[in-house]
Structures are given as structure tokens and as C-alpha cells.
């Protein structure tokens, strides 16, 4: 257990915990776009920056991304100094120039009083903020179907050669985790298309509703030993089946009691 001072208040935290986790627990509002508990922090978006200092090092202070700064005993943290606010505003301003059409960024900008970016709008912007959440989550799955391609300002998230990613299983984890919702996908009754790759969907044998892509089901069967039949019907039909099965048991029990 360590003690840290957050905005003047002494708070307890577990050793090794990341600062952002503690700040969130304390109910302090820290913006963070690239942070997600299911993936390792990487510090791409820089929004969760806070100022740290220590009583024993007079005059020393530093700005760190709280998402990957492990707490240390005696740390003094300030989350809303004018410098910290200036950093956040500038980053959001830059992102607004980069992603002018993103609702998430627009809303965040408005919260910081920015209604129009101070910079020139990036012409080829695709509203991706390059947080790598998608590539990181795909890596957790062990698939790494997509990756960051090129470098610097030309960097984009893309499948190899910009074509159908051979390793993609159509699970949608990337699209779902995306903080700015810029990974498009479409479902028909029996297919799903993402990253230009079209997948067959398993459709419920009783009602025909889509359940999951075949590739994802096969992946779960192989990786996590889930029986094939679990994927054959949709959740609603499975509930009905459960009701019927339980009903049978109840009926049998009642008949037996009579």
C-alpha cells in the first residue's frame, strides 16, 4: 500500500497500480481515449496527462500520462493545473483538425471550449485518432489481423496490403473498442463485412437470426473448447429452449409427485 496526494488529498493505492486507475476510482474526471482495461496501456493519446512532483525534490515536476505511470509512495499529483489543461486543450485542438467530423472529438472539444480548430484541417483525415486500441485488442486475441502501417503523419491502421486480412475472424472487437467509431462494418442476414472481408454468419437454426461469424465460432471452439452446438441458435431461442427444458423437468417432477 502506498500513499499519494491527489489535488491536495491523501489517497491510498495499491503498489504497482496505474495512476489513472486510482484517479478514476477517486472520481476525478480525466479524459482518455486510448485507454481500455482489456489492453495494455501505451500512452498514444496523451490526454490523461497529469502533473507529478515530490515534496523532497523541491522545484521538480513532470508531466506524465497517468495511464501508464505506476504509483509511488509520496507522489504528489495535480490533475487540473493550467499547464495540464493547456496540454489537453492543445491535443484536442490538434485532434479536431485531424478528425473534424468525429462526434466524439467534437463533443470533447466543446467541453474544453473549442468550437473551431486553431489549425488547418488535415485534408486526408479519416477521423481515426491513431490510438491503436483496435490493433492492440486484435493482438490480445492472438490474431493481429490489422496493424499500424507507414509512419509519422502518413500512418494509418490497415490490414496487410490494404486488402482482406487473412487473419481476421470478423469478431468486431476492433470496431467495438474504437473510441471514435470509425471502423465500418455491415451485416446482412447471413453475412458480415469488415475490412473488406466478408464472413458467413451462423444463423439461428430455429429463427434465422444471426449469431456470430463462423470463423469466430471456430476460433472459440478451438481456443476455448466451447461445444459447437452452443453456437447453433440465438440467445432468444436458447432461452426458450431453456424454458421448455426446465418446464419438462417441472412437469415430470409434478407428475411424479402426483
Amino acid at each position: 500500500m502506498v500513499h499519494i496526494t491527489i489535488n491536495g488529498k491523501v489517497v491510498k493505492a495499491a503498489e504497482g497500480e496505474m495512476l489513472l486507475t486510482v484517479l478514476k476510482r477517486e472520481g476525478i474526471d480525466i479524459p482518455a481515449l486510448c485507454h481500455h482495461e482489456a489492453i495494455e496501456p501505451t500512452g498514444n493519446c496523451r490526454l490523461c496527462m497529469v502533473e507529478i512532483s515530490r515534496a523532497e525534490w523541491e522545484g521538480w515536476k513532470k508531466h506524465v500520462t497517468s495511464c501508464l505511470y505506476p504509483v509511488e509512495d509520496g507522489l504528489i499529483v495535480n490533475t487540473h493545473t493550467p499547464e495540464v489543461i493547456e496540454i489537453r486543450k492543445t491535443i484536442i485542438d490538434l485532434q479536431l483538425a485531424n478528425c473534424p467530423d468525429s462526434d466524439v472529438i467534437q463533443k470533447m472539444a466543446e467541453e474544453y471550449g473549442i468550437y473551431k480548430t486553431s489549425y488547418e484541417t488535415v485534408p486526408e483525415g479519416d477521423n481515426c485518432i491513431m490510438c491503436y486500441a483496435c490493433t492492440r485488442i486484435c493482438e490480445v486475441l492472438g490474431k493481429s489481423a490489422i496493424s499500424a502501417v507507414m509512419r509519422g503523419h502518413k500512418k494509418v491502421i490497415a490490414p496487410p496490403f490494404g486488402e482482406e486480412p487473412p487473419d481476421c475472424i470478423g469478431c468486431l472487437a476492433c470496431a467495438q473498442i474504437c473510441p471514435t467509431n470509425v471502423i465500418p462494418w455491415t451485416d446482412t442476414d447471413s453475412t458480415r463485412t469488415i475490412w473488406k472481408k466478408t464472413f458467413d454468419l451462423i444463423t439461428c437454426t430455429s429463427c434465422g437470426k444471426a449469431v456470430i461469424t463462423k470463423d469466430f465460432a471456430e476460433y472459440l471452439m478451438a481456443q476455448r473448447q466451447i461445444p459447437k452446438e452452443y453456437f447453433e441458435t440465438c440467445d432468444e431461442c436458447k432461452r426458450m429452449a431453456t424454458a421448455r427444458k426446465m418446464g419438462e423437468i417441472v412437469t415430470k417432477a409434478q407428475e411424479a409427485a402426483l
Partner: protein
Amino acid sequence: MKYQFEVIPSKCIGCRTCELACAFAHAQNQKPGKSRIYPLAYAPDKYVPVTCLQCDDAACVKSCMFNALRRNEETGAVELDKERCVKCGACVAACPFGCALIDDVHDEIVKCDLCGGSPACAAFCPTKALVYKRV
């Protein structure tokens, strides 16, 4: 596990009070959530409240690639850590009883969490068809 959730179908009259209680217990920003419990008719006028059985070797837990589903040893519930969930829907597809659900209203995956130890459904069930008790 110190507690057990018991369903007594013979007492269920299909009044759907549990469904309502569940939705309100999981309201966010005054919007009721999707119910995690459904009294379903298996025969005319015969009902079974279908909800998560908190299976020992739960398929939902096994299917989650991101460790977002973990058992609460205190309440016995398999709880979903929303911070770790990416909404891939593996658990929804994998649960053999159809008890992991997609909540379109709040755009999240939901499943019964036994309300953290005091399930609203059991509290409101007028016929005591749902019982949460210490073992």
C-alpha cells in the same frame, strides 16, 4: 460461495414483475436497462423464469478472450467487468442458455450479476418463485 439463487418454476405465474425489477435495477441515467430475467411460457399458463444459472464451468467465462467475466466469490455471480468488455459478443453466442444478452439501449453486453448480492427480482417476486438465500 455463501449464497445461492434458486428458481422455483412451479410458483411462477408469469407476471413479469421480475423483468421490470431487473430493468429498473440496472437503469442508467434514468433509462431502464435490458432485463436479465425472462419468465417464459413453456406451456399455456405455465411459466419458467429463465435467467443466468451462474454455471460452475461457465461457457461465457471460457469464451471471453479479454478476461472481462469473473466470478464474485462473495455473491456467486459471474460478473461482467464493463471496463474490460469490448462487446465482441462471444459470451452471448457461447452461453448455452441464452442468458448473456446485448443491451441495445445502453450499448453494452449484460448478464445477471445478482445485483451485487441483493437481487431485485427476488425481492419483488410476489409469489417467491425467486429466492436468494444463504447456504
